[in-house]
């Protein structure tokens, strides 16, 4: 077995340029394939991490997202006193009524406006998001025009730093802190005091009510009760589900486009592998005849050539993953169609993606190598030996 592997490997090394070119073709396909998976994984991670498992979001029925939602004070008051809400160590309810508005900010280095989420928050908003912590500066003083901004906002937008002022809603807001939300979507948000925000934008309503459940098992009951309450017109979602739904369209777009493109691309690379393997078989006809004469079974010849094609695709896979691993340093920031707001996420390489790329490349190798390998193994020994 070892010798067969060596045989295949050395043959690849012997045809350096051809091997290099064929493997490069496969590497490019794997690059695109893994990049697509990394992108949707990055998006998924960002959005799922944005939600906490035991948090619940209440928005207006059918609104789909916080941006489109509106919940008035009376309804908010009813929701706020739900007994299922967990208490913090000082006995206070872990619930926040929030307002989300979008404003246009100019991205660094361009003159283009991006829609940025301004979230009106309350005291409990921060404890409700364990992923978010203040990185620089201080927290907002309630009742003032102070704001804190996500780290990606500070990075990507002009003139956003501690001490600087942003103007929106006919007011000047001072940046007092920068928070780090890890890989969550909060990194692309600006937070202000919800009551100040409501006044400045003359918004009578909140966008959403966020709270933590003391027991996850209560969720179904709570959902039933709130959604059927005649005084309310709301929808209750687990926070993780909520954020996943937000990106459904974007994720599907990336998947549909990415997967169909990689499949088409892979046809090109598979044909390339086939060309190489066919020529390998043609060149080594006499070798094959000799091996068969020595008593090697057809299966062994098949295996040797298939192995060669698999090694080729394996090399392509390594090359492709090597290239795509650099993408991890790159962040995509784009508008989420469903919320109209800016969303930043990075390419994320996971062991699962590495495995998927490996499987995909080996499939390419099998498809590209199988027919030539079958041809190699089914030759008549006498004919093969007679070739010069």
């Amino acid at each position, binding site marked *: 077995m070892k010798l067969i592997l060596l045989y295949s490997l050395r043959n690849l090394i012997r045809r350096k340029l*051809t091997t290099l070119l064929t493997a*490069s073709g496969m590497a490019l396909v794997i690059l695109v394939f893994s990049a697509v998976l990394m992108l949707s994984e990055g998006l998924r991670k960002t959005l799922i991490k944005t939600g906490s498992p035991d948090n619940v979001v209440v928005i207006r029925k*059918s609104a789909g997202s916080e941006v*489109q939602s509106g919940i008035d004070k009376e309804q908010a008051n009813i929701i706020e006193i739900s007994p299922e809400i967990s208490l913090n160590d000082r006995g206070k309810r872990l619930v926040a009524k929030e307002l989300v508005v979008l404003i246009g900010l100019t991205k660094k280095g361009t003159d283009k406006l991006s829609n940025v989420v301004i979230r009106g928050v309350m005291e409990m908003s921060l404890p409700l998001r364990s992923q978010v912590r203040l990185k620089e500066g201080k927290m907002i003083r309630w009742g003032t025009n102070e704001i804190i901004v996500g780290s990606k906002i500070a990075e990507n937008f002009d003139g956003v730093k501690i001490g600087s002022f942003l103007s*929106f809603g006919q007011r000047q807001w001072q940046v007092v802190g920068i928070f780090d939300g890890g890989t969550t979507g909060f990194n692309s948000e600006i937070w202000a005091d919800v009551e100040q925000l409501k006044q400045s934008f003359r918004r009578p309503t909140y966008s959403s009510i966020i709270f933590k459940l003391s027991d996850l098992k209560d969720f179904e009951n709570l959902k039933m009760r709130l959604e059927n309450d005649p005084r309310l017109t709301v929808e209750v979602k687990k926070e993780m589900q909520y954020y996943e739904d937000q990106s459904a369209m974007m994720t599907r777009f990336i998947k549909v486009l990415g997967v169909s493109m990689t499949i088409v691309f892979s*046809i090109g690379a598979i044909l390339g592998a086939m060309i190489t393997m066919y020529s390998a078989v043609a060149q080594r006809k006499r070798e094959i005849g000799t091996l068969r004469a020595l008593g090697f079974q057809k299966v062994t010849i098949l295996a040797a050539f298939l192995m060669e094609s698999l090694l080729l695709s394996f090399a392509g896979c390594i090359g492709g993953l090597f290239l795509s691993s650099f993408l991890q340093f790159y962040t995509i920031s784009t*508008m989420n169609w469903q919320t109209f707001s800016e969303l930043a996420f990075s390419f994320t390489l996971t062991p699962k993606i590495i495995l998927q790329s490996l499987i995909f490349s080996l499939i390419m190798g099998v498809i590209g190598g199988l027919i030539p390998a079958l041809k190699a193994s089914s030759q008549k020994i006498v004919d093969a030996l007679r070739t010069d």
Partner: protein
Amino acid sequence: MVLLKYLFRNIFRHKLRSILTILSVSVAVLSFCLLNTIISAWYAGVSASSAYRLIVRNAISLVFSLPISYKEKIKQISGITYVAQGNWFGGIYIEEKNFFANFAVDSETFLKLYPEFIVSENEKKAFLMDRKGCLVGRKLVERFNWKIGNNVVLRGTIFPGNWEFVIRGIYRGRDKSVDESQFLFHWDYLNETLKKTSPTRADQAGYFIVGIKNPEDAAVISREIDSLFKNSLAETLTETEKAFQLSFVAMTEAIVIVIKLVSFVVIGIIFVVVANTMNMSVRERKNEYALFKMFSYGNTIIFGIILGESMLIVLTGAILGIILTFPAVKVVGDILSVYFPIFNLHREVIYESLFISFIVGILSGLIPAARSIKINLAEGLKWDL
């Protein structure tokens, strides 16, 4: 002449290899064209916009509305033809995956501002007469098998509730750049309903479409409109329809860049496949080229034979790929119609792919051709393998 014959014959010498290479090139050219069609679909809204229209929106962001009272004030400005208000309605038909664009518009003026929306006189009349009437694009009608007179219910996301409409008209586009998958209904119907259900949200327009007599006045009129509402609660941002559409595309530019990059990866794939084929062919014919040299043919001729062969393979593949692109654009356009209502193959894309194939043909013949020059006469003529 003999050399040309030799060039052609060479391609048929390894039929299978040539066919596989040509196929691989055509697959790559096909995907290059498709990807670039997607990119141009991205900009479809931009290319469909008219220089005779301005869009007025809330300066904070699109989700903020403007008081309807602005309409009368804008109308006072000279150089303006019509002003129509509109609201992005964001309604969902049965379920979310049935997404299509739906707007509440000031119907009569809207149709005057958008002469590219072609509706028959009868249907137009019927639409304008019915308070709950709606005007639907041809493609949308086909997608859901609707007919005139059908009732359609949209579930509001921005404006809660179930909204009933009756299809009164079907519009067609004047040309291919017009989005034929929109759903339009009367702004008054929306506003009157809101007055009853949530009065605070009534009398608000999402945006105004302003028709201008002379495109050259766009900048002046835009400034005039914006200065009219300066320092008010809802400041405006006025720009040409094109700029407005571009700002939308710009927000998702990162994705466009990614697609563009991916389309270059395809070119890389063609390159390596063809270069490989040429490399193998040249290696096999080493002694033939040595023979040519023996007959005192210059390097240029051998160079030409190799480059000619790779060009021929690439261009055959490219033409095949382009032919395949036409039906493919149709199929993919149908699949992606939710994302891209307008999905047309542009002539520029075809030219671009031909041009790139030409370059790739030369480049991929270059390495093996360079190798052929190094062929040593004595070594090349040794007929071993």
